[in-house]
């Protein structure tokens, strides 16, 4: 079988300026993710049910946010979870947050569908550095609320740029053409917004 999902979140070398030692990294949830994936690797279908219960809402919500179509959003969700079932060992060896990785992969897949382009694994090699613990419902809800507040606190231009790039799947050139802003300005806004979110979570 071909490589299905992008590479699991292999932890790169941590840098001193990593701002992702999130407050929610402690707790038993990451171990639960791993244990769940071990059961999935053992072809335990009930483990997939638990896995879906844990992350189905998150994955579907992100896909729906991008695609604005429930059917297409479920398509993306189903494919991602199915590939988790097919290749759970990829995650078992990974470090970092499985939930965070799923969030980014889901967004990328949804954008692929939105832009009607074939998924490009080489581009989709999502390696992320995040200790965001999303295994429990409480933690997910808490983190979501916190991120929303942070994003709402950003300058409107940054919000819009991130919105168009991340959720609408537009390239920076398309955003510049749409807003009339210079390319460099768009780039700066997006990076600044991301750094701001990172620092706010870290604070």
């Amino acid at each position: 079988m071909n490589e299905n999902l992008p590479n699991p979140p292999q932890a790169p070398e941590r840098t001193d300026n990593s701002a992702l030692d999130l407050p929610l990294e402690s707790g038993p949830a990451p171990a639960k993710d791993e244990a769940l994936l071990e059961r999935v690797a053992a072809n335990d279908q009930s483990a997939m049910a638990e896995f879906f219960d844990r992350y189905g809402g998150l994955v579907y919500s992100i896909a729906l946010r991008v695609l604005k179509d429930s059917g297409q959003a479920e398509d993306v969700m189903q494919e991602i979870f199915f590939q988790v079932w097919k290749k759970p060992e990829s995650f078992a060896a990974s470090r970092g947050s499985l939930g965070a990785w799923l969030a980014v992969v889901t967004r990328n897949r949804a954008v692929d569908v939105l832009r009607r382009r074939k998924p490009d694994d080489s581009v989709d090699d999502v390696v992320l550095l995040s200790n965001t613990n999303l295994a429990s419902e409480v933690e997910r809800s808490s983190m979501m609320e916190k991120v929303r507040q942070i994003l709402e606190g950003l300058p409107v231009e940054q919000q819009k740029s991130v919105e168009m790039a991340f959720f609408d799947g537009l390239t920076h050139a398309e955003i510049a053409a749409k807003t009339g802003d210079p390319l460099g300005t768009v780039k700066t806004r997006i990076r600044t917004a991301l750094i701001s979110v990172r620092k706010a979570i870290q604070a």
Partner: protein
Amino acid sequence: MTAGEHIPQEDLALYAMRSLSADESAAIRAHLDSCAECRAAVAEYSGDLALVALSVEQQAPPDGARERLLNRIAADANVPESNIVPIDAKPVNRVYSSIQWSLVAALVIFAFALMLKIGDMRIELRKQAALINQQAAQSARAQQVLDLLTSKSAQRVLLTAAQALPQPSGRAVYLASSGSLYFQCNNLGPLPAGKTYELWVIPANGAAPLPAGLFQPDATGGASVILPPLPKGVPAKAFGVTMEQAEGSATPTAPILLAGAVSGE
């Protein structure tokens, strides 16, 4: 670009977001292969993007989505791995696929139902056609009788008992051109077992009598012969009734019980 020339942070953020063009992405990807520092930066931006993704309003998966996944997984347990379509293949649209399969299933069902309906309609059509043919035949026969009885050129003959006793009598209406004959009689005596009355047309040309039908009287002695099979174009000079064996006879057997000559013959 070499590892010593790092990618601008803005571009790395856009790369993580996949918001660069294909060419730009390819160039950065080539650089990342040899630059751990830039890879780490991309990973950090990806972590940031995961946070951004969390800002979405939470929505519950559609009803049945969980079951669909579990069913697919259960089905996969018995499917060779080579049969699995990878996620990097052409994206599968479950809804469209589901709609297509549902549409195919609906069409199959509809076609099957249509075939059954067509079959039923064909049977009904055959029944109706048979009924129409039957009614047409009856109508044609009735019309022929009417034509015979109303025809001015029909020969009308009163048949009486050949003997002096007048009680049994019969009336024949005959149209030679069409070979049509209507015969009705009264007061005939009951037949012995194994016997029948037989009507005869006596051709005007002296040919042998033509058998014109077997009949048995009812309880009142009445009987009729309507449109027996007769050749066309045989003018008659007389009509007669004899008693024959139940299966009838090719030639009349004496005595002639009823006889009547065509007027003017």
